[in-house]
């Protein structure tokens, strides 16, 4: 029982702290930032144990360029969303806070006017020449009730891609697949045709992990299913899994699974180890993002110098159908500017000016590569990094502050040949992306029952592919999804869709 009380006490303490913090920020219209010598606190994600220190030479150079002193508080990527929730509960906001996922508390906070509404601010191209170039589609994606509450971190839209062992294809006399049938055949030959030529049947086609949604959604798009949600024959929005094409995709994956083209332990295979069996030469295909090919290519070179890694963006359903690709949302979290810490419009203006400047080439280069001549050199217009750990440490994770609304900075020249092809894949994919129509909409039902609903279908899909449930059971799970709140989500989205002027 002590434990239970402890939990109750913990919740209560945070409630009391919150109350105190909120009481102090009511109705103040006094500037909260020193405009002479601005000091801005930034909370963003860290992917390294030793992120750049606030007194590192690179941060200081960045401060000088931006005209403000940045103080970073680095939060590990794995617990980032939890940290955002607690920061909001404690009411202790940095000036610039990255919001990773649009959780129900983030949505609630936006509606409660906790963050500055940037909808009409970002369009001012005289004041913010860089920020005015934010993509309207992505802004639409991050909007809440039609309002934009943040500045997104731009990401490649056409990022999806398939990493494949080119030398295996060559050994088997195969080409890069262009249709689903050819793709199927590649998996078959990778499993049965001894692609590594060692005379032993010790390889299989494709690595799928406990993150089934990645490969599954890409395949479903190729097969003609909508992205996330789509319009049915009655013009009503329905989730992708209620379309026949999605079911066909599941059946196809089940075929592959049963034939051993996919790893038998996919349900429990951690996505952290996605590359592992590719690198050790046990499997030859990964459907994920195209840039995975770069990491795989540079890592495999040490283990097996003969391995050739290639990448392609998509396969078509048939030779005569148009290509379809799965886009990303175009952003990876967005920065919000809480009114509790950025009190007045002048303060906001100052912060946004800093964010705008951070999109200049000089700032982007500082965040990505450090200081020229020390941390990197420029050769043929490409940045060449100095890989000394002590130097890398001085700008580690600073790129997590970059929004890259405008890509002004230098690019790197990678040693692996596949790297250039990745950019081609991005550019080609972009032409064929299938948008998710419900991306900006907020469903009340989904925000309270979302995790539970997602779990139902994730479980049903996995169990169907590995053969634990039949097609009829899978249909029953869709019914269960509907009855446990899914119908409410459908209703919410359709209502929002009808009210959305931008699609009519």
């Amino acid at each position: 029982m002590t434990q239970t009380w402890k939990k109750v006490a913990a919740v209560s303490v945070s409630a009391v702290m919150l109350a105190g913090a909120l009481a102090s920020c009511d109705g103040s219209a006094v500037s909260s930032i020193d405009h002479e010598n601005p000091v801005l606190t930034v909370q963003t994600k860290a992917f390294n144990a030793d992120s750049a220190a606030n007194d590192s030479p690179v941060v200081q150079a960045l401060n000088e360029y931006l005209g403000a002193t940045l103080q970073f508080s680095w939060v590990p990527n794995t617990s980032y969303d939890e940290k955002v929730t607690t920061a909001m509960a404690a009411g202790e906001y940095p000036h610039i806070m990255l919001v990773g996922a649009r959780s129900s508390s983030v949505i609630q906070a936006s509606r409660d006017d906790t963050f500055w509404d940037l909808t009409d601010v970002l369009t001012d191209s005289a004041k913010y020449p860089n920020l005015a170039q934010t993509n309207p589609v992505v802004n639409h994606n991050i909007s809440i009730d039609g309002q934009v509450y943040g500045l997104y971190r731009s990401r490649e839209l056409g990022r999806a891609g398939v990493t494949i062992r080119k030398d295996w294809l060559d050994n088997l006399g195969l080409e890069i697949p262009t249709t689903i049938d050819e793709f199927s055949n590649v998996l078959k030959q990778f499993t049965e045709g001894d692609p590594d030529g060692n005379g032993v049947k010790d390889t299989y086609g494709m690595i799928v992990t406990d993150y089934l949604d990645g490969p599954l959604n890409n395949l479903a798009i190729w097969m003609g299913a909508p992205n996330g949600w789509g319009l049915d024959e009655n013009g009503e929005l329905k989730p992708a899994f209620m379309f026949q094409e999605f079911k066909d995709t599941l059946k196809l994956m089940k075929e592959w699974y049963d034939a051993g083209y996919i790893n038998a332990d996919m349900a429990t295979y951690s996505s952290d180890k996605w590359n592992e069996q590719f690198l050790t030469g046990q499997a030859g295909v990964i459907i994920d993002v195209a840039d995975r090919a770069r990491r795989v290519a540079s890592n495999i070179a040490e283990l097996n110098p003969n391995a050739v890694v290639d990448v392609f963006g998509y396969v078509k359903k048939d030779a005569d159908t148009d290509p379809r690709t799965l886009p990303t949302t175009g952003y990876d979290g967005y920065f919000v500017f809480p009114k509790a810490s950025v009190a007045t419009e002048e303060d906001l203006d100052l912060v946004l000016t800093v964010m705008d400047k951070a999109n200049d080439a000089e700032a982007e280069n500082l965040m990505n590569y450090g200081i020229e001549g020390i941390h990197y050199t420029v050769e043929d217009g490409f940045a060449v990094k100095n890989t000394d750990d002590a130097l890398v440490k001085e700008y580690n994770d600073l790129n997590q502050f970059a929004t890259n609304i405008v890509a002004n900075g230098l690019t790197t020249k990678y040693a692996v040949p596949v790297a250039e092809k990745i950019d081609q894949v991005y550019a080609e994919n972009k032409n064929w992306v299938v948008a998710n129509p419900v991306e900006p909409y907020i469903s009340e039902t989904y925000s309270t029952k979302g995790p539970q609903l997602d779990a139902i279908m994730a479980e049903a899909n996995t169990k169907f592919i590995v053969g634990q449930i039949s097609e009829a059971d899978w249909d029953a799970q869709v019914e269960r999804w509907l009855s446990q709140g899914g119908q409410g989500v459908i209703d919410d989205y359709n209502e929002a869709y009808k009210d959305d002027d931008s699609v009519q």
Partner: protein
Amino acid sequence: MAKAQKVKLSPEEKAEISRKRKAQLFRDRWVYLLLLPGFLYFIIFKIVPMWGILIAFKDYYPTSHFFGSGFTKNWIGLDNFINFLTDSSFWQLLRNTLIISGMNILFFFPLPIILALLLNEMKVQWYKKAAQTLVYVPHFVSMVVIASITFMLVKTPSSATQSGGALYEIVKKLTGKEMQALGGGWAIYWVLLIQNVWKETGWGTIIFLAALAGVDVEQYEAAIVDGANRFQQLIYITLPAITGTIVTMFILRMGSVLDTGFEQIILMQNTLNRQNSETFDTYVYQYGRVEGNYGYTTAISLFKSIISIICIQTANRLAKKAGQAGLF
């Protein structure tokens, strides 16, 4: 009986008693002063924060106001409780929680007692001490480490030509069966139980060993004179001597019957076993800590606390009925 014998006191006698009490209070004033910090600790850190429970009756998010302007807003009565109790996942959560907890009480609870009795029977002191220290060690191993060890042991192979974890291969060699320890069904319950047994059995012996140390040695001597063998000594002297401790521990355990913790379960959870492994604690973690749905999850925790009080009271009553001292 006590009531019937109560004697009417005269005003003088009453005054006398009150005076004596005051004198006692004054005499022990330093003792009471020493008590004060502890008393304040409980008031400030345990009782006062309980106001927070009120958010269980509000539509409350991390950014909602609690005091001040927000205090009168968003009161929703018992809606959070009703939503939870009528939610389709409630019964599934209850079932999983009770199975995990029930298996722990049934299979895990007796083990520290048995181990303590075994340790107690050891006559070679250095060996007993060494064994005791060794069985404590797993308690200090992090759950994350235990989860990865488990995974390495029971992992299934990726393809027909690869091999799985050591334990998986042993079972396959011995029985020909492919053990799906991380798949669906009841497997997850056994995995959780075995992890618990491995980690906590040794640590759990501490309190019972302490109780065993207090058993009167003369009783054993008398029993030996009467011709009792080792086993009879165990049954008739040792066990009765520690029954009180066992009952107390059991009553306390009943109080946490809905607590499964979330760390261990979240580490072992995957899409195949989620339906069997989602419990109140993992649900509260997901909806409270990650999603920030504080009002709703406080209601769930409060519900758990109420059930805990009922369980503890019931267990206590039953213990008293059975002639034991009980907890209170």
